[in-house]
C-alpha cells in the first residue's frame, strides 16, 4: 500500500491555533508524522529584554490566552525572589484563587473541544456554558475575562471585598452540580468511551522519556504536581489531592481533567475560607539586584518553568520560558503513529495543546 502524507494546518478546522502537522498514512492507518511550530511566535523572550520588569507583566500575560494568570504569577514570583521580598499572605491567596479558577475554565474549554471533535456538540455547548460562569467570576474579581491583569510585582492589583466570597461560592456550588453531570457522562456515555478508551495510550516510560508533564503525565500514572511537589505559596498551606490514573489513554486524560476541576473547586472554597486579612501588596524596587532564579509552577497543562537573570538594571538580562504544551507537542508524533485516521482529532485534542504557549 502506498504511503501518503497529509498536511494538516497551519490553518485547518481541526486546529484552533496554527500548527503544521504532516501526517503519514497507509490506508486508514497513521504510520507517523512530524510537526512544525512558529506560526504565532512573537519573540516574547527577546521582547522581555527590551522592556522593564513592570512592562513585562502585561507582556508575559500574553504568552497564553487561557492560562495567563499562572504565567504572570510565576514571572512575578521570580522577580520577587530576586528582589528578596515576600508578598503579603492575602495577595498569595488571591493569586492562588485566580490560578484555580483558571484551571477550571481551561479544563472545561478543553473538555468542550474534545467533545466537539468526537461529535458531541451538545456537551460542547454545556461545557462552554459552564466555563462562562467561571469567566464571569474572573471578570467580576479582576475586570478581565482572559487577561486579568491581577498580578503586579509585589502583590496583586485588586482586593476581594465582602461580597466576593459568597458570590464565588454560590457560582462554584452551582457549577458543582454541572460538573457532576459531566463526570457521569464522561464515565458512562458510550460514545465518549468508544472514541477515547484505548486510544493513543502513553506508558510511564513514554512520559519520562519525553519529559511530559501535567494531566497527560498524571493520566499515565506519573504522580507529579508542582502545586504539591515544588509549591509556590500558599499551596504549601492548602490541603488537596493529586488526581492520577493508570490507563494512559485519551479516556484517562479526560477523567483526570474532570476530576481536577472538582479538586480546584474545593481549593477555591478552601482559599476563600482561609484567606487572611491584611495588605495586598508590598513596595517593590524598579531595579532588581543581579542574580538568577528558576521558578516552576503548575499551570493547567502542567509544569511551567521560568528562568530569570538580572544584571542589576531595570530590565531582565535573560528570561527563558518553557511552557507545558511544548512537551506535549514533542510526544504528539509518537501518539499519532499506529492510530486510525478517524482518531486524529481525538488524539490532537486529547493532549490539550496551546500553540500560543508553545510558540511564545
Amino acid at each position, binding site marked *: 500500500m502506498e504511503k501518503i502524507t497529509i498536511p494538516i494546518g497551519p490553518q485547518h478546522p481541526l486546529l484552533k491555533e496554527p500548527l503544521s502537522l504532516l501526517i503519514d498514512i497507509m490506508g486508514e492507518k497513521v504510520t507517523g508524522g512530524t510537526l512544525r511550530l512558529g506560526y504565532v511566535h512573537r519573540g516574547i523572550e*527577546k521582547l522581555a529584554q527590551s522592556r522593564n520588569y513592570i512592562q513585562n507583566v502585561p507582556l508575559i500575560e500574553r504568552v497564553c490566552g487561557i492560562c495567563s494568570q499562572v504565567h504572570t504569577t510565576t514571572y512575578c514570583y521570580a522577580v520577587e525572589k530576586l528582589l528578596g521580598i515576600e508578598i503579603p499572605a492575602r495577595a498569595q491567596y488571591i493569586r492562588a484563587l485566580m490560578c484555580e479558577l483558571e484551571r477550571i475554565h481551561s479544563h472545561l474549554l478543553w473538555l468542550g473541544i474534545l467533545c466537539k471533535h468526537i461529535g458531541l456538540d451538545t456537551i460542547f455547548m454545556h461545557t462552554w456554558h459552564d466555563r462562562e460562569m467561571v469567566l464571569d467570576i474572573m471578570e467580576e474579581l479582576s475586570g478581565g475575562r482572559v487577561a486579568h491583569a491581577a498580578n503586579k510585582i509585589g502583590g496583586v492589583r485588586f482586593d476581594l471585598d465582602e461580597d466576593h466570597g459568597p458570590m464565588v461560592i454560590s457560582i462554584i456550588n452551582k457549577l458543582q452540580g454541572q460538573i457532576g453531570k459531566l463526570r457521569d457522562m464522561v464515565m458512562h456515555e458510550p460514545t465518549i468511551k468508544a472514541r477515547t478508551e484505548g486510544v493513543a495510550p502513553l506508558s510511564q516510560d513514554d512520559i519520562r*522519556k519525553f519529559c511530559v508533564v501535567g494531566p497527560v503525565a498524571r493520566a499515565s500514572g506519573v504522580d507529579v504536581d508542582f502545586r504539591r511537589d515544588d509549591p509556590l505559596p500558599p499551596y504549601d498551606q492548602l490541603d488537596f489531592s493529586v488526581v492520577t490514573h493508570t490507563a494512559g489513554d485519551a479516556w484517562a486524560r479526560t477523567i483526570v481533567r474532570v476530576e481536577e476541576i472538582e479538586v480546584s473547586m474545593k481549593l477555591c472554597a478552601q482559599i476563600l475560607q482561609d484567606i487572611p486579612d491584611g495588605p495586598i501588596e508590598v513596595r517593590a524596587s524598579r531595579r532588581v539586584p543581579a*542574580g538568577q*532564579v528558576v521558578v516552576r509552577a503548575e499551570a493547567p497543562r502542567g509544569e511551567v518553568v521560568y528562568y530569570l537573570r538580572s544584571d542589576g538594571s531595570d530590565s531582565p538580562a535573560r528570561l527563558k520560558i518553557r511552557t507545558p504544551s511544548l512537551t506535549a507537542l514533542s510526544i504528539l508524533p509518537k501518539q499519532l503513529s499506529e492510530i486510525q485516521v478517524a482518531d486524529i482529532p481525538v488524539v490532537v485534542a486529547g493532549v490539550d495543546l496551546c500553540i500560543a504557549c508553545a510558540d511564545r
Partner: protein
Amino acid sequence: MVQDIITDIESETGNDCQKIDSILNEQVLQISGEDLRQVVEMLKQKHEFHHLSAITAQILENDSDYVELLYHFWKGFGFTLLLRLKKENPVIDSIIDHIPGSDFYEREVAEMYGVKFNFRDGIPPLLLPDDWVDGPPMLTEKKA
C-alpha cells in the same frame, strides 16, 4: 546528594566538576561541554534524573565570547548543569538519544543561538520560517 553527584561525575569523566551557588532555588554544577553525554547518561542511570525541564541558552554581558547552556533537571528539587561553549563555533553533543524530550529544546537553542548539535540526523527549524536568513535572532544586537 549533590556531593555524591559531584564525586560520580569526577570519577566518570576524570574532569573537575564545580558547584556554583549562582541560581536561587537550584543546585548548579558546571561541567565541561565534552562530558555532557556521559554525565547525562550517568545522572539517568545512577541518580534517576529523567525529567529535563528546559535548556536555557544565553550570552553573558561580561563574558560575551561564550554561549552558556543551562540544562534544568528536576527530581523533587531543581538541578542544573551549566556549560560554556565558544561563541565563534558553539558545538555540543546532542542528548536526544538519552532524553528524547530534549528534541524541541535543542532545536530551539540551535535556531535562536546558532548552537550546533552532534549526534543528530539534521536539526529542522522549529519556530523560525524556512526562509529565515538573518541568523540566530537572540544573537542580534537589534532591539526587539
